[in-house]
């Protein structure tokens, strides 16, 4: 299932074939790396393989996972979205303000408005990048600050808590023994995987990132695709916002600072090229899991958080190094 997802690149069949092989290797590589990591951790910590612990890991990665999936779409088009942490905080705040116990709002109101808040900011990113040709780095760097500012303005700098139990279920509930955030992350992942692999839109995303000029000449509306990936990223920030407010029982104005770094790290570890056009959502899934398992494992072992940062950083660099050597070999 992994090896074929890069076949979406609508270029010559030779590159197609080559991508298929290298794609398989890099997917395979990251899965091997993940399994090796899990084996080591289950040997050194007797608690690692417990069902509850594995569910904890999944719950802990689900928010970064949702953000990283949006980030994958953006990076596939050669873009970047630095504003995900701030957009998530804004969406969380908007949703929470309509989810407080005494507001009496039905659950659908905070859910819709939270998603809409993320989507709206994502659309602003999309319009500015696609229509006005602002470089993605600059636009989303601006949005990182603007969305954070909006969050403080909206909340007056104060946290919003006392959220209704039905809203909290999104972050703390369980369905047949599986935490709700994990289910949401899994659903988003399946949808993204299906979209990138089986839909025209998915193929166009790869095409725009692979070679925008060729994509334009072949009749793809490049600006529409570009706009869409930022909108998707914004919408997923909205979802992540709902999840984090429900998980921490409050929307905090300073939530999500530097979350963009973990999301980008997951995408990069997952083998998606920052140069666009190459990458798999399955890679991102394992990138997310690797970061989560490292944090969890080092916590279980009682290793200082200083080392966690060191290890995480080293893994990012090694992942990109492998990516580079893979590209130069082809």
């Amino acid at each position, binding site marked *: 299932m992994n090896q074929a997802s890069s076949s979406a690149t609508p270029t010559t069949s030779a590159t197609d074939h080559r991508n298929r092989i290298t794609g398989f290797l890099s997917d395979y590589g990251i899965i091997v790396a993940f399994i090796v990591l899990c084996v080591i951790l289950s040997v050194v*910590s007797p*608690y690692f393989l*417990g069902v*509850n*612990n594995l569910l*904890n890991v999944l*719950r*802990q990665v689900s928010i970064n996972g949702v953000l990283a999936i949006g980030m994958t779409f953006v990076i596939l088009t050669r873009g970047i979205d630095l504003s995900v942490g701030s957009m998530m905080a804004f969406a969380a705040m908007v949703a929470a303000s309509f989810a407080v116990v005494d507001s009496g709002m039905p659950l659908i109101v905070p859910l819709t408005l939270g998603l809409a808040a993320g989507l709206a900011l994502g659309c602003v990113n999309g319009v500015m990048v696609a229509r006005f040709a602002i470089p993605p780095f600059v636009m989303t760097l601006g949005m990182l600050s603007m969305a954070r500012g909006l969050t*403080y303005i909206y909340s*007056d*700098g*104060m*946290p919003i*808590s*006392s959220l209704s139990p039905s809203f909290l279920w999104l972050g*703390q509930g369980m369905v047949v023994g599986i935490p709700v955030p994990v289910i949401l992350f899994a659903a988003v992942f399946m949808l993204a995987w299906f979209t990138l692999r089986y839909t025209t839109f998915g193929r166009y995303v790869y095409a725009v990132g692979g070679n925008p000029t060729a994509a334009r000449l072949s009749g793809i509306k490049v600006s529409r695709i570009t706009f869409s990936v930022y909108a998707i990223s914004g919408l997923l920030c909205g979802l992540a916002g709902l999840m*984090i407010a429900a*998980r*921490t*029982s*409050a929307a*905090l*104005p*300073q*939530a999500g600072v530097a979350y963009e770094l973990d999301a980008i790290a997951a995408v990069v570890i997952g083998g998606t090229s920052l140069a666009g056009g190459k990458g798999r959502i399955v890679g991102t899934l394992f990138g997310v899991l690797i970061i989560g398992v490292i*944090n*969890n494992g080092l*916590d*279980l*072992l*009682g290793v*200082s*958080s200083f080392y966690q940062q060191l290890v995480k950083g080293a893994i990012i660099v090694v992942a990109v190094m492998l990516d580079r050597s893979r590209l130069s070999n082809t």
Partner: protein
Amino acid sequence: MKTTLHRIAFTALATAISTSALAEDPLRIGAATYGLQGEFMQLWSNALEAHPAVLSGDVEVTVFDGRYDALVQSNQFDSMITRQYDAILFVPIDADACVAPVIKASAAGIPVVGSNTRCNTDQLASFVGSDDVLAGQMVAQQVIDQIGDNGKVVVLEGPIGQSAQIDRGEGIDKVLAENPGIEVLERRTANWSRAEALSLMENWLTAHRDEIGGVIAQNDEMAIGAIQAIIASGRSPNDIAIAGVDGITDALKAVTQEQMATILQDATAQAQGALDVALARLGKADEVPLSDIWERYPELEWAGGEADTYNIPWTLVDQDNVAELLEQRQ
């Protein structure tokens, strides 16, 4: 016609003179806060705006957001000195980086009154805050009082190197040294963050199962994160002794449910007390209304505003006073 014009000109001139006379009247006090993104500094600055001398119009305060950056604070000092503020209230982000701005301001003849966080200089006109070492002792004692002489605890710390983390940690160490039967299973930073403490506590609960008898948190946000992890693991926070510091609104709510204990840091007293002392240093204490905190804390000696340090007492929040404190937050 001419006389009418003269009359208008004269009236305008008279108005201009009288307004400028009025504008010179209120004392201009600058408040340099380390940042307005947390609930505590919000409460602090709201209390400052609600000081009776501000409400009566005798004092005009301008609150600066230091954005958690010592350089930003230093620049704000420069502009306050240029604009010749009458006095400065200072909540520095860093105990050493704050020294140079304070020396600059006092050289310019502007008294600087420290509040909340420490500054390692003797150039402050006075300091109105609370003793973090004492807070550390109180929070540790709270937990040990509940679990008895023998037990196992975990400690959640603030960002390593910040003065509150160092001082509260010192207080916790003092109490732990007096209680050799208490074993510290884990001691790690969660950077004051609820979300970080939540993940960390989940992992600790996996690693130590039911061994953890107490959670000593250096602030309330992290204590609440721990409570949420405990609930998510199917345990009850009522069975584990948990205590935090600050008295944020969510912690007060958790106290009402007997989930934790907290030690209230009185933002109102720190802010209004600092302004009282600044007014005394400007020789205006007899002309303008002062705050009522000196009546609220009879053990706090006003001493005409001449003392070097005012230690605002910490208040242990329990079932007796929590309802009243929550009401004040409304």
